[in-house]
């Protein structure tokens, strides 16, 4: 029997893409992953695409808070709903595996140029999947307390605005501390230092009123 490496072994040896890819959308990155697997003679099934995407572009395809694990849901959602059903860049299904469509074969040339830096995109894409953490931090950034904080009107932030910002609209005695802890956890997970500073400021401003 010949000592031929299996597809899985080959994928295990994939290294992270050297150039910057964080600001490129996941639709394009996964198109590249499918092309890359095909170019290596590996059949692009969903499992292989998931692991290959994680190995090649770990910053884009790992779970928030668990960077050592691949985000299979995002890969499935993007490969199937975006690249296959909506954009027609891929053909196939979870059952049959995926391959580049005729349209995808033209688009991959552009993706390769984007990844090599030959083409730049006007739009910077969001790297983080819209998780609960991101949703809540985004909502926090839209509050009047945060707006006043950012526009140097810190003295004008009222207690009510602070409680409203943290969505503690009733029973602050019980809820304030817990809300602050939870938002801090979200900000750490998202590495949002600006929000961490803001939360520290809120804690100081309340001066231990609610524990």
């Amino acid at each position, binding site marked *: 029997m010949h000592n031929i490496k299996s597809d899985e072994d080959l994928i295990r040896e994939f290294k992270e893409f050297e150039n910057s890819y964080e600001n490129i959308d996941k639709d394009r990155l996964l198109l590249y992953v499918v092309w890359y697997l095909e170019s290596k003679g590996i059949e692009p099934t969903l499992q292989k695409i998931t692991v290959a995407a994680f190995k090649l572009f770990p910053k884009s395809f790992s779970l928030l808070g668990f960077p050592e694990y691949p985000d299979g849901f995002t890969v499935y959602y993007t490969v199937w709903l975006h690249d296959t059903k909506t954009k027609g860049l891929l053909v196939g299904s979870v059952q049959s595996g995926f391959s580049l469509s*005729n*349209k995808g*074969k*033209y688009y991959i040339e*552009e993706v390769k140029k984007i990844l090599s830096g030959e083409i730049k*995109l*006007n739009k910077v894409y969001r790297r983080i999947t819209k998780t609960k953490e991101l949703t809540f931090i985004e909502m926090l950034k839209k509050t009047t307390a945060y707006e006043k904080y950012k526009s140097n009107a810190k003295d004008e932030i009222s207690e009510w605005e602070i409680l409203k910002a943290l969505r503690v609209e009733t*029973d602050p005695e019980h809820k304030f501390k817990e809300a602050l802890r939870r938002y801090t956890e979200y900000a750490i997970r998202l590495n949002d230092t600006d929000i961490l500073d803001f939360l520290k400021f809120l804690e100081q401003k309340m001066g231990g009123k609610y524990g």
Partner: protein
Amino acid sequence: MDKDDLKEVDKEQGKVHPKFFEKTVQDNFGSDPYKLIIELIKNAADSYMRLGATISPPFEIFVEIDTRFKGFMPYIEVRDNAEGMSSDDLERALEYGAPPSAKTENANTSSEKGVGLKDVLMSLGDNRIITVKNNKVTIASKDKNFDTIFLGYKAGEREWIISKNEREKYKLKGNGTIVSGFLPKFFLDKKFETIKSKLEKHYLLRKLLQCEDFKIYIIDRKSNQSRPILLKYSEPKISKVLVDDSFEIEYEGKTYSAQIKINEAKESLGPLSKPFGSAGLLVYSGKYTVLDLILGNYKNDSRLYKIFGEVHLDLDGLEQKIRNGEEKPLVDTARHGLIPENMFNKNLFEAIDKYLKEILEINVEPEYGLDSVEEKEFVRKVNKIYGKDVSGNVGGGGTYIPIRPENFELYPQYVPLPESEDKVIYLVVNSKILSKLHSINILSKDPDLQLSTSKIDLEDEKSNTDGFIVKQIKIHSDKIGLETEIVANTTEINHESISGVIVVENPLYNPENGFSFVPNKTSIVKGGSKKVSLSLIKNLINSEINEIKLETEGPISCPGKIIIPTANLNKKLIKNVLIEEIDVKAEGEVGAEAYITATYGNKTSTIKIKIIEEPSIGGFMKHIELSPDERAKEIAHFDETGTLTVYYKHPLFKMYMANKNFKSRPDFITFFADTITREIIKAAIIRGMQNNSPSFPQTTPGYITFEDVDAYFTREYYEKGPELHELSKHLIKKLKFL
């Protein structure tokens, strides 16, 4: 809910038909289920009031909520330490059609007819009432048949001396009453916090919560601490007191006095909204009996969104008429509010309206707005001025091109091209390579795909040293199914770009059954018009039939017929198809659907047309609006959503607006127009820099600096300022009073 060994010891049969109860519950609690809890709290408060001087405040009422029963609604218990009831009192209280509690006549209570307690008990699942009076306890519940079931330990014994253990268990130190049970499903809210918050906002409870004699506590049994939390009503912050006065109401030859207090809140409270809104005047009598929350005849007037206050009525003997008048009662039996037909209320509303009218005339400043049509036109023109500069690369026709190549690239990479129709693709060239390039060749790999040009000459672009050059290339093919490529290359540098093309069937030249609208459904903006296409193949054209009949159904209009040209017909045919364009005008409201049926000989075709809202405006600017917010520090602000808000109550604006006929004064118009112009320019520069627009390159890539914005501002103010200024002046002249 505790398990105990109580059993049925006696029963009083119900005297009411279930249908009556259903109607009563629906009338009383259907639209506002919080009245269930409030009824119990007010019963407890009334009970304290009946004790008069025999006890002193604070009068405590406890509302305990238990949400731990999975699959059930929350369990509620309302407890007071007031007068309590004997078993005979309780029997009467739970009888339908019972008179009010014995001593209401002189007590300052909410004086209802005796319907509330029974209705609430019947609505509560697994209900129970425990009451202690003169050291004797009575326990009862209402069952589904409206029977009153007395519970106890010995048959026939409805009340007994309460033991120490029972006192501890029921938390009743002296006399008092507990009503408990599961809230009905129509209550909907299941969370403790929600129930607490809504009770604190409910208008019927507002005066009781403000009354210092009463302390109403709520307890979350689910919480480990289960400590009582005092219910509080937070009044809106007062900006100024507008009215603090008293007036009189004439009714049936007698004069009743009333005190009125009207405040202006610091912030808008929104429209009058019962039962949880803060806006409006709370009408009450006695210490805490709320009759209604009203704004007279001005309840929908947005100018009064900041108004709140109260009207206290000295009813002086009219209490009995609150819910039991000979003509129309003052308040309807379900406590939905004051009945306007009642003469007393009519006089009351009239008096209140006078105060509100005066407020509108004196205190409320006029609100301004912009004409929506003018606003849209203004925004559209601004976007036209700034479209290319703000969006980065924009090809002809406003197509946004999202790439910035190092060399040059065709865009898009793949084109589905309808047969026999022109389409445009783009060549984006980085101006940095112009020194090395004179031209770029554009080739079609198949002669059946025709291009408008085979070479893009770049000599004329040499002066363009920053940014990107976008060139259009028209493509055309008559061959369905053709799959080919367009290549852009040059011998001057080693680079090429390829776009794939597939030629797809064009339904205009292949109408269904030879005679058809293409497409067969479309939409038209409300009030707008559109051309729709009707295709007829040559083979079907009959020289004896020279017209196509058009019939409409629904709110659209179009010509009644199309005459088929007889002379030079062949010249009007494209690929042996006659394509007629029909003007259609939408005349209905958004959402309306309409049809046009075209008939030619025995062939018919129908197009479905839907009337739609005008699509959102494309471009960096979406809206411009005027705001009366006085707190704004800036005169105007352009936010991330593309809305430019102008704060017309800013002191600088007020200075101009204080003048008579300010709208036509040149100094005001110039000031307003300049404010708008400057904000738009600033926003366009920032948006352009964010989008890496070649018009606004960043000196430090990745950073938008004040210095950059300032430098571009001066340039833009001179270049685009005059045009924006003129547009703004036109818009301001359309300023209207709301």
